[in-house]
């Protein structure tokens, strides 16, 4: 692996031409699926994910019901065509883990106790992947949950930071992820600065970690604003049409 090392930073810019603390371009569309109770299409650079929310509805199988609160189901799934080499379809160890951590990232904002015995189902499909799909999925899911009219304390925003060529940078793309040194996705509630997901792959020094967290949090705040804008726009737009 050492011999094919590529230079990820040239003249103070990243391969994609971005600065160190720059996000990829983001596009959010709300309510794209007609049959879902809430949905969202989210693009983060070359990542394309779609989230659908159903419910609250009756929980099946029944013995998984919680008599006091709703159960959140989260399914993260990568389409076979979402990556360069065809991915074997269906759940695997990786997607099960991501589903679990993403669910836990969203759980704290949902007022589950208002809907006892029900299930709130979140389906996240990755159509195209370019590193950071779990963060894109969480962003999409939180917008879709709001669109479904589910009571929430706040939206959840998520972004990753990483280390490439010894520099801490925001929002890695696939090349940077593969040849970089470390990668750390976080999810947080922007208003209260509460972190609901933090994973780390690779190594950061303590001061790198602290600086990275700061960068990631400011990235989340930017995404939070975009999520809000997208939701508000859905209704202000259709109001002006006629």
């Amino acid at each position, binding site marked *: 692996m050492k011999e094919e090392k590529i230079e990820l930073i040239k003249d103070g810019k990243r391969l994609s031409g971005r600065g160190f603390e720059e996000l990829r371009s983001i596009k959010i569309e709300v309510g794209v699926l007609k049959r879902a109770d809430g949905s969202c299409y989210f693009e983060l650079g070359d990542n394309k994910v779609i989230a659908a929310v159903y419910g609250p509805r009756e929980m099946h199988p029944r013995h998984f019901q919680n008599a006091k609160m709703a159960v959140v189901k989260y399914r993260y799934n990568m389409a076979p065509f979402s990556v360069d080499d065809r991915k074997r379809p269906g759940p695997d160890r990786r997607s099960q883990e991501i589903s679990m951590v993403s669910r836990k990232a969203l759980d704290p*904002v949902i007022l589950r106790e208002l809907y006892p*015995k029900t299930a709130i189902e979140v389906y996240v499909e990755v159509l195209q992947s370019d590193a950071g799909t779990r963060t894109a999925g969480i962003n999409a899911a939180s917008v879709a949950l*709001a*669109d479904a*009219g589910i009571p929430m304390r*706040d939206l959840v925003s998520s972004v990753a930071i990483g280390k490439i060529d010894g520099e801490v940078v925001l929002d890695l793309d696939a090349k940077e992820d593969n040849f970089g040194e470390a990668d750390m996705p976080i999810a947080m509630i922007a208003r209260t600065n509460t972190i609901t997901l933090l994973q780390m792959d690779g190594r950061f020094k303590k001061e790198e970690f602290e600086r990275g967290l700061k960068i990631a949090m400011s990235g989340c705040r930017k995404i939070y604003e975009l999520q809000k804008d997208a939701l508000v726009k859905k209704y202000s737009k259709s*109001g002006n049409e006629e």
Partner: protein
Amino acid sequence: MYKVVVPGDFISTEVNRAGDGTYVEDGNVYALKYGVVDDRGTIKVVALSGKYMPVNGDVVIGKIVEISFPYWIVDIASPYEARLRKSEFGRGENIDFGNMCEYLDIDDLIVAKVMNVDVMMRIDLALKNEFKMDGVGRLIEVSPTKVPRIIGRSGSMIRLLKDKSNCFIFVAKNGRIWIKGSSADMDIASQTVMKIANEAHTSGLTDRVALFLDSFKSEKGEG
């Protein structure tokens, strides 16, 4: 103009006016749902989507999905199923295990009132006087959050709709709407209801709906 808010948006500092669809934290009122702010009286956030949650006294349209003596299990477009006890038909009737389906069969639609909702979300229904819908007319379903808009302030919108479309229209709290009339009239009525549901968040809707309904009339006159 209506102000659209998303969950977690700051609305106000007047904690004692906080109402439905909001929550209070550190002396501030925040939005709990994605919806529009209603600032008259208490501060409320009226959701733009969401499922029907039964409340005592609501009149709903339900569909029988299962017969399980001595109950009919009724789907009321909510996350929870409701049940209708056989005694709702009165003591004089001799209803037993075998003949329940002669009174109400699976897929029958009924107009019922929510009598009781308990903590376990068991819902008991009571029949309305004219409960049977007998397959007459049309049933359309909209989000229950749009129902107040379809009825309008003190019933102004629904009155307009009934007058101009010549239909019998019954709007149930769970978002199911029963329309009865001639085929052409029902077309107009259901199109208008969908228009109201789609534009529920805009202001000046009653006037636009009136124009919309008149446009059908002029078309008919010319043709």
